[in-house]
């Protein structure tokens, strides 16, 4: 039984068709590299899986359980063990690091009042031990707007690291990161794999995707146009496939425009 199965997913934004019949599976303990051009529909697909918005049409199964799209939500996804680092980072930059880390899952007492000390201490620990912020000189009370681009991305990824999940979805997580920081993210994906978890990894940097993924799914204009296991394809071949796709698409658009 796959961990996640999405069948015949369609998504319209008004008249824009973002997804047109996508089948997407993530197995237990599998790292899936989701790749494709700008606007292919990658983020849309994983946002549906994360409960941000429902599909216009299609079925979703998580751990074998059919998901009712009307009752599915980000909260429900969290409850089912799906953790997502969004391309948009999803940070409130005027708020402190600890508030951002725990947004939506604040440690609180029975009346809903925050356990601030606990939240700050846990944030501090994560910043020092995992994210290694400037040698630990940053306070968890610092507003996110005072952080560098890479540090902000660190906070966004830190959420996924802190909340143990069965499936971690990373949408362009290495944006704004230095080479060493990128290695940390790739290592995080490897530890997920070692611990028996699953991961969906979206990136335009094929070398990074190739380094950690078990399988690749190529999306183009809202459809899956290719699926390869890592042993079926080499990194140059994968690059070649994407370039060809890009060119054929440009050609089609050219023909459309000139006809």
């Amino acid at each position: 039984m796959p961990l996640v199965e999405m069948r015949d997913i369609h998504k319209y934004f008004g008249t824009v068709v973002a997804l047109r019949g996508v089948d997407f599976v993530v197995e237990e303990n599998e790292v899936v590299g989701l790749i494709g051009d700008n606007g292919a529909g990658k983020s849309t697909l994983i946002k549906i899986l994360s409960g941000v918005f429902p599909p216009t049409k299609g079925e979703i199964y998580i751990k074998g359980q059919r998901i009712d799209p009307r009752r599915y939500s980000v909260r429900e996804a969290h409850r089912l063990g799906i953790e997502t680092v969004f391309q948009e980072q999803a940070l409130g930059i005027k708020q402190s690091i600890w508030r951002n880390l725990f947004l939506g899952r604040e440690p609180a007492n029975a009346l809903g009042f925050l356990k601030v000390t606990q939240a700050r201490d846990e944030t501090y620990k994560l910043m020092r031990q995992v994210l290694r912020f400037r040698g630990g000189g940053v306070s968890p009370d610092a507003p996110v707007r005072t952080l560098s681009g890479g540090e902000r991305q660190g906070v966004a990824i830190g959420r996924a690291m802190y909340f143990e999940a069965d499936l971690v979805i990373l949408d362009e997580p290495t944006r704004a990161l230095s080479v060493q920081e990128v290695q940390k993210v790739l290592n995080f994906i490897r530890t997920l794999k070692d611990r028996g978890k699953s991961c969906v990894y979206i990136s335009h940097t094929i070398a990074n995707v190739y380094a950690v993924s078990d399988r690749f799914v190529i999306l183009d204009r809202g459809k899956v146009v290719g699926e390869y296991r890592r042993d079926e394809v080499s990194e140059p071949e994968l690059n070649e496939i994407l370039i060809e796709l890009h060119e054929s698409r440009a050609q089609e658009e050219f023909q459309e425009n000139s006809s």
Partner: protein
Amino acid sequence: MIKTSFDLRKYKMQIGLILIIGLVILLFIITSPEVFLRPSIYLAYLTTIPFVGIMGLGLTFVLASGEIDLSFASVMAFAGYVCAVMVDLTGSVTVGIIGGLLSGAVIGALNGLFIRKIGIPSIVVTLGMMFLIRGAVNLLSGGLGKSLTFLIGTPWHSILVGKIGGRFPAHALWFLALAVVLWFVLFRHRFGNHVLFSGDNEGAAWMMGINVDWVKIKVFILMGILAAFAGIIDSFRLLKWWPTMGEGFLLTTFASVFVGGTSMFGGEATILGTFIGAYLIGSLEAGIVAAGLSGFWTRFIYGFLILVAVTIHTILRKGRES
């Protein structure tokens, strides 16, 4: 462990405000010592300021959530009317108070639903609601006030607006208590956290599982209830209700909140600032009049103070960013 020492810099805005209040009062003492060296003027402040202050607390939440409300001064009058009528009908002050508060909650919920479920900007919805509710109040009451002298001696009257020790107005304590509770709600409760994030980055809040629509609707309900409470206690205090009640309060409430340091941009707010701002704005008029200046000066000085205070707040905020 993290250093948790009390960081004075975090409160420099509020400290600045207290200094301004001190300066203003000093100025008043110099210009009219006969008034400002006696306690009665300060007791008068405690009597008149809490109404604007309580609505200012609600407005602080609304602004923190990234929205705006123009209807609360009308809600104040409406809830006062509902309360008075229900006391008339049922003979029970308790029922009247509950009815008044509920009417405020319902108008707040309507505001929220129009804004979030239909998608009309809050400034437009609440502008319409401001006129609608004021009109409804006038139509229902026929433009006539209502006497509430029968409230004298009832327990609710003493609890809400009685004079503690014969002098100290109870509703000043209600204002203080609400400010403390709402500080905890905004900065130490999940709900407040969601309010701040909804105002800071709505998309981020959605993606992290916050139902921004509901958060904002609840904020408008809170604003409605607080405005209703202000209306009820104001009519209790004066032992009468009148249809133009609250008309002068809309802009002074905004002035209090902005002078206090809450920004228009959402995601940032200060309850302590609003508390101090209400007393600052509320103390000006009496001082200006006592100093022998004409009432014309009041607006000029309000305007001056608002511009100066907001400029200082903005510069301080910019300073924190860089």
